[in-house]
Structures are given as structure tokens and as C-alpha cells.
């Protein structure tokens, strides 16, 4: 019998932890530094690839994702060194997806051709908003027109281009958002990520919010209306939502992110990177130290960038399988969750079907249109004791 992870496949995540500036809403592991020794970083990534490659020999690699931070600050030579090492380590799927997150500035667009030559075949651009005032409020360094120029370059260089927008912003009305969304869909190539602004603890927005100084955020009802509108407009334009916040033309979904959501295995390399790896029949959660300097020196000195490697119990796996998998429009496979859990879920499922939150048949469990916006409540119910 195949191992559970094989249902999701195997991918590799590379974390580049540096940004030119920290955005006030971002709680990702990103750092602003004056100087980066790109060569040293390339060596560390290559060393980590070798280490993990030895443990996962023979697996077919379906995707590589350069995330951050701002990976478009990487020297194309570094990207090339990493991808060269990857090709030498694993058998590569014919349709491998290699994505790099990019900021839409002219400087970074200048490196796009270099990334393509190294093997990147998809970019995901952090456009975030289509007007200058809101970009400024979000702490972005680019203007709307600069973003459009960078976006045009990306389209000419790569076959596959995605971009992110943040909505439910301060002072944004339902009408404002609809206009912006329609404009974005007009530009879109094959994929869009549309995130509602979330105020996270430990960010500048989080501090301002706690102090009562972040005003004009839409309330939950307006946010719910915005979410429903987004789903409808995108679907009508051929960009159906395939995940809570992700939309694609049919067949253009992100291979890499689907590995996460289908609860496959993924190696995480770089500061603060997380991984899920099934080794010798046991599923592990791995995590690397968050501070860039700490990770780099650890790799150099010990040859292992992981901070910890924890065994995931069957209950943990089941919770993760559900909390990732239920994000997908297609839901999760009933056969898989029956194997991961001996919990009797059927009463909970039936109760949620009864109130219109879930759709359930012998093969698939998924959220209804109505259940989608309250996914967390559905998960709490499914996973309660």
C-alpha cells in the first residue's frame, strides 16, 4: 500500500528571509539587512539539498517554491546553483513547477530573464493593491504603474504568472473592491491569490489595532459580503476559486501549494522553514531556526539546518490533513481520512451536512458554498472531542 503522503506528492520549499522593508501587515519570517553574502547562502542551500536528498532518494520532485521574504532579491546565480543541485538530486517530474515570489519593481523585473534561464517557470507577484494610496498604506515600496510594468515583463518572460491582492483594507467599500477585482481579472494570466487583510499579532498593524488606531476596517458582515462577491465574480470570469483564497483557470492551479493542501510531503529549507517528511513509515514535522544568521551558521557548522524534527501522531496528522485539505474546493478523500482516524466522525459530519455546511458522499467530504466562509468553525466542530 502506498504511504499517505504519496496522495499529495513531494515538493521542496526554499525560504529566502530578506526584504528591503518590512510590510506592516506581514508576519512572515522576513528580515531587513544591509548586506547579504549571496555566495554563502547559495552554499548553505546546496548543502541542505544534499542532506535531504540522501533521505528521500528516488522520490519524484513535483515542485520547487522560492518564498520569503523577497526571493526576487536573490542573485539569479544563486537560484541557478540551487536548481542545478536539485536536478542532480531527485528525478524531476516532466511538468515540474518552479515558482519564485517577486516584488513588482523595475529592479527586480530586470532579473526575471535570469531566473527563467536558471529554470524558474512561474512567478507569483506581490501586487497587493491597484492604487497608490492603498499601496502606501500597506507599506509597499512600488507604485501601481511600476507594478504594471513589472507585470508586463513577467508575462513576456514566463508562461505562468500569478499575482496577489489584499482586500478588506482600511476604508475599502464593497463597490471599491468589486471595481478593483474586475480590473485585476482583466490583467490576470492564469492564477490569482486574493487575501482578506488579516491583522496578525506581532506586526505593526497588530500593534496599531491593539491600540485602537487601525480604523476603517470592514466589519465581519462586510468582509463576508466581500468574500461572497469575490467568489461569484471570479467564477463568472473563468477564475473559479479552488482554495479559500486562490483562483485559477482550469488546470492552472499551483502544483506546489496543492502539495500542502493535499497533505503531501515537503522539505522546507531556509530560516524558519517548516517541512513534512515521511521517513521509514513515520511522518515528521521539521522546523528550522528563524534567525537568518543562526540558520546559516548551523548549516555550516553541523551540516543540518533543522531545529527540530518531531514525530506527528496519527491525531496530529489527521488534524493537519483536515485543516489543510478542507481548504480545497474539491475537499478531501474519504478513504484517506478513514485511514488516518479511528474517530467516529460520522455524527459530526451528518450534523454539519444537516445545517448545510458540508457536502458528503462515499468518496469526498467538502465544504458547501455556505460552509466555505466559516471553515474555521466547521473545523473546530469536526475536530472537537
Amino acid at each position: 500500500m502506498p504511504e499517505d503522503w504519496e496522495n499529495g506528492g513531494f515538493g521542496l520549499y526554499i525560504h529566502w528571509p530578506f526584504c528591503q522593508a518590512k510590510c506592516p501587515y506581514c508576519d512572515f519570517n522576513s528580515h531587513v539587512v544591509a548586506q547579504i553574502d549571496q555566495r554563502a547562502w547559495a552554499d548553505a542551500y546546496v548543502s541542505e539539498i544534499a542532506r535531504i536528498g540522501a533521505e528521500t532518494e528516488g522520490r519524484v520532485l513535483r515542485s520547487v517554491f522560492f518564498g520569503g521574504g523577497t526571493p526576487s532579491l536573490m542573485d539569479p546565480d544563486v537560484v541557478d546553483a540551487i536548481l542545478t543541485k536539485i536536478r542532480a538530486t531527485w528525478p524531476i517530474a516532466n511538468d515540474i513547477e518552479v515558482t519564485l515570489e517577486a516584488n513588482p519593481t523595475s529592479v527586480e523585473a530586470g532579473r526575471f530573464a535570469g531566473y527563467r534561464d536558471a529554470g524558474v517557470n512561474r512567478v507569483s507577484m506581490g501586487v497587493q493593491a491597484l492604487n497608490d494610496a492603498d499601496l502606501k498604506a500597506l507599506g509597499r515600496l512600488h507604485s501601481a504603474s511600476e507594478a504594471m510594468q513589472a507585470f508586463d515583463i513577467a508575462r513576456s518572460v514566463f508562461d505562468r504568472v500569478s499575482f496577489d491582492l489584499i482586500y478588506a483594507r482600511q476604508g475599502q467599500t464593497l463597490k471599491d473592491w468589486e471595481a478593483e477585482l474586475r480590473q485585476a481579472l482583466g490583467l490576470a494570466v492564469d492564477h490569482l491569490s486574493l487575501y482578506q487583510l488579516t491583522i496578525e499579532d506581532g506586526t505593526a498593524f497588530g500593534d496599531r489595532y491593539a491600540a485602537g488606531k487601525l480604523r476603517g476596517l470592514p466589519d465581519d458582515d462586510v468582509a463576508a459580503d466581500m468574500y461572497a462577491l469575490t467568489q461569484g465574480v471570479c467564477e463568472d470570469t473563468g477564475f473559479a476559486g479552488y482554495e479559500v483564497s486562490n483562483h485559477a483557470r482550469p488546470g492552472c492551479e499551483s502544483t506546489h501549494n496543492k502539495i500542502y493542501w493535499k497533505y503531501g510531503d515537503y522539505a522546507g529549507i531556509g530560516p524558519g522553514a517548516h517541512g513534512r517528511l515521511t521517513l521509514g513509515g513515520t511522518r515528521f514535522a521539521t522546523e528550522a531556526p528563524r534567525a537568518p544568521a543562526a540558520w546559516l551558521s548551523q548549516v555550516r557548522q553541523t551540516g543540518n539546518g533543522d531545529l527540530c524534527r518531531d514525530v506527528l501522531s496519527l491525531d496530529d496528522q489527521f488534524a493537519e490533513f483536515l485543516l489543510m485539505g478542507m481548504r480545497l474546493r474539491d475537499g478531501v478523500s474519504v478513504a484517506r481520512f478513514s485511514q488516518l482516524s479511528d474517530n467516529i466522525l460520522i455524527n459530526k459530519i451528518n450534523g454539519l451536512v444537516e445545517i448545510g455546511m458540508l457536502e458528503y458522499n462515499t468518496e469526498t467530504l467538502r465544504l458547501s458554498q455556505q460552509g466555505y466562509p466559516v471553515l474555521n468553525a466547521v473545523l473546530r466542530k469536526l475536530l472537537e472531542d
Partner: protein
Amino acid sequence: MTDLSHIRNFSIVAHIDHGKSTLADRLIQSTNTVADRDMKAQLLDSMDIERERGITIKANTVRIDYTADNGEAYILNLIDTPGHVDFAYEVSRSMRAVEGSLLVVDSTQGVEAQTLANVYQAIDADHEIVPVLNKIDLPASECDRVAEQIEDVIGIDASGAIRVSAKTGIGIHETLEAIVNLLPAPKGDRDAPLKAMLVDSWYDSYLGVIVLVRVIDGVMKKNDRVKFMSNGTVHGIDKIGVFRPQMQDVAELGPGEIGFITASIKQVRDTRVGDTITSERKGTEVALDGFKPAQPVVFCGLFPVDSSEFEDLRDAIEKLALNDASFSHEMETSAALGFGFRCGFLGLLHLEVIRDRIEREYDIDLITTAPSVVYHVYMRDGEMIELHNPADMPDLTHVDHLEEPRIKATILVPDEYLGDVLKLCQDRRGVQLDLTYAGSRAMVVYDLPLNEVVFDFYDRLKSVTKGYASFDYQMTGYQQDNLVKMSVLVNDEPVDALSMMVHRDRAEARGRAMVEKLKDLIPRHMFKIPIQAAIGGKVIARETLSALRKDVTAKCYGGDATRKRKLLDKQKAGKKKMRQFGKVDIPQEAFISALKMDS
């Protein structure tokens, strides 16, 4: 033994914070009863809760040796009484055990309602009363005005009031002299059969029950066999002594003396305050008058937040009950709250003290249901049922009528808040009995239903008067009224723990306030939830809690799985603080907050 003429027994009557404990400490200290190194503030209040709240729950006593200015040695016995209305009966017994009282009034504040209640108890007990004006060291002290107020309000001569600062020690010597010269010596016959009053009792884990006694006639000695007249039980005295304030053995206790005995008694329940103790053989035939067993007047349900702690709760309640004959309990099952106990208390303070002790000393989180009074339900067949729990209300077709307990409430309040106080009392179905002035303070007396007071009357009174009102009450009896049981339905299911007895005329307002409050207290669910208040089958108030519309994490990628899983685990733990009712989760604080009315 000490000659009766050289004994003085007294209590101190005072309002909270007027300096009773400080004065007691100073009397003890100035007579070298306690070495300075053993002195700690408020020597006599031994429980944490007593110290924190500045109240005395159990009677304490101390024996002080004092050589007066006339050169004679005296024994002074101070009984420090509970100062709260809930313990009025205990106060009355302590008062009967002594011959005089010091009436301590804060000279910066004046007479308060509680002072009144206790001073009337002292007058009832035929005490000689010595007024003491305390805190004269403070700039706001107004001795003449307060002395005049004592004369006006209480009607005793205050011209010779002793001026004291318990804090600095001014007037302490004068107070001791007044005790010797103004208070009467006890009377009693050493050769008569033993007759002693059980003043109070409490449990000690080493000695068993310790019984505080006042000997009226006869003598008690170690190894004597004594009989408790209310239940006929006989015990051999293991240990006999006095408090200084530590226990000190003595050979005997004779007439006029106050001390303790232990007699291998396991339960405080077996020792009833006010009981008469006599010899097993040739004892007195005539018991002291005024004895009555304690009657709980306020009831509520106590449930463990974590249902697995039920046995711990049982254990805690049984231990506390051993030491408190006035606290009753029986097991109760609630559909909403699971297993718990229906408990009876002497009053709201008693309830709070017991609840605090369970939470603190036994570390059990509790859900407390709405306090309820004891209703008398008269059935059509003539039978009368005492209703302790609205959930037990019999079928209305068999009920003829209901009666509820009423109280006489005395409130002293500065003039500027009088209007608000009158409105509060009217709103609570009060009937004004009296309204008089003492200086700039009004004294209002109201006849009120106890059930209107047990919810949050005292909190409301404090808030409308910014804390300047003082309040006391006594039970007056039962009266018929138009009372109904109001049920609360959440998602069409009755929530038993929220049902309550209300007056018919107040039902709509109560019901409305309740459903509005619950709407705020219950989190949104995935479906809309009707919240209704009903009398029988008739809905009198309704709100609808709309469905949750958005609760979804915008971003969740490979690096988020661990964090989101741990968050779900944490929420799972938080959910233990919710009670599931049908399909609805109700947070426990809803059970408490929903019952606090703002109007």
C-alpha cells in the same frame, strides 16, 4: 477561679472599616496579652477571606488580663462577633454571652446601617453600651457631630463618648478603664447545676471541633461529661481553656467565664450555636431561651466548570459543611451544567464566602447559578411545598398560590443619592415604611421582596450611591404575590439553569433584559439561534442571534500547519469552558452575567 466582680465580658459593635479590629488589636497589645513580635494586623480575623474583606465570619474571643487604676486585677473577655446581616443569629448569640458593648463609630464617617442593626442587637441583649469615637487623629474627624448623630439615630447618651485613635493609641487606656468601671460584672451561681451557652464552634484538623462557651452557672472541668441539650448528645471534655488569643489550658471555667472546650466531636453540625450545655448528671432542666437552628434563606446551584472535578467539589463541600452548620447542600443534576450541588446559605455574603473558599482553598472553578430564595408553594390540596429551585416548580394546575419571603431593609444614604435609592427600591417592588434624616444623611426603611435583593441589589445600591450607602436587612415573613416561573429557551431548548421565579409584572422586563444579554454573551454559531424567555408556553421576549458569516483563515500554507493545529488544540481546551446545550455552546460566564440585571 476569678471572682465574678473582677470579670468583664464585652463585644465591639462597629461598621466595616470603622476600626473594630484595629481597636481590638490595640487593647490586646497594650495589656501585653500578646508579645509584640507576635502581633500582626487584625489578630482576630484568621481566615484570608476575613482579612481581605475586612469582615469577621466566625466569632473570635480573647481573654485579656488588666490591672486597673484602682489597683485591682481584672479579666476582660472580648468576643469579636460576625459583623454581617447574614450572620445576625450568630451575632445575637454572641451578644447574649456578654454584658456590654463598645460601640465604635468612625468619627470621620458617622453611623452606618450595619452599626444600627448590631447596636439594636446589643440593646436587645440589655447591654451597657459605651460609645467610642475612633480615628480622631484624622483631619476629617468630627467628634461632636458624630456624637450628636449617635444620640439622634440610636438614642443613647453619647456625651461621655471616649475619643480614640486606635491607630496611634490615643484613648486606649481610657477605654480599658471604661470597660472596668462602666460595664456590669457578670452574674452567676457557682453551686447551681452547669448551664453554659454554646457561642460558636469550628473545626480544627488536630483537635476536632472546638466549642466556644460562656458559662452561666456551675463549673466545667476537664473530663466532665456534658450534654448538648438540643440533641441530647453527651461528650467527655478532653481539653478546656481560654484564648489569649492562642489556646491556653485552664483547670476549669466557672460562672461568667468565656473559654473553649474540645470533646472529640467530629462535626460542627453536632454543635449548634445558641445551644445549652449542661452536665450529663444532675444537669439543669431549663435550657437558655432563644435557641433556633440555622435556616438557609438563599439557595443556588454550584457546578464544577470541569465536570471531571465533581468528586473534588463534593469533597470540598462536605469539608466546609463540617465546619458550618448553616450551610446546606444536596446533589443536583442540571441538563445544562451536569452534576453539582444545590446549596443553601444564610445570605449573599455567606454564599460568596463559601464560593470563594471552594475556588481558592480547593482550587475548583465553579459555575454559580442564579441565587433563589425559598418560596412557599401552596397546592390545591392544601399541602405546602418549600421551593428551593425554580426547576422544581410543580405543575401549575396543581398550584393554588405562592408566597415569597420579604425583608425589612434599612438604608442610610447621603441626601444627594436619596432619589436614586428610592427609585431602586420602588423598581424592586419595595414598599416604603419610613424615611427620616440624621444630619445630611437619610435613613430609609423599605419592605422588599428578598428575591429582588438576592440578584444584584447590593451592587446596584453601591453603584447608584458611589459606595456611600450602607444597607442592612432582616427577614420579616412570607407574603402572597403574583409569582411565575420564567424559562429561557436557547434554540428552542429550555436551559434549566437560567430559569427563575419572577413577579408577573416584572417578567417582561426581566425576560427582555435576559434575552438581550444572552444575545451578547453567546458567540455566533454556524446557524441562527432564537433566544426566548417564556412563561409556561407563552413567549414574552425574543431575540435572534444571527449566524456566523465569516471565520476563515486567509492564508494557510506549508509553514502554517503546525501553528494552525496548535491553535485548534488550544480552542479545544477553551471549549471546555463552554456548556453544550443541544447544538449550542454557551460560555459559562453567560450563566453568571445573564443574571446580573442592569435595571
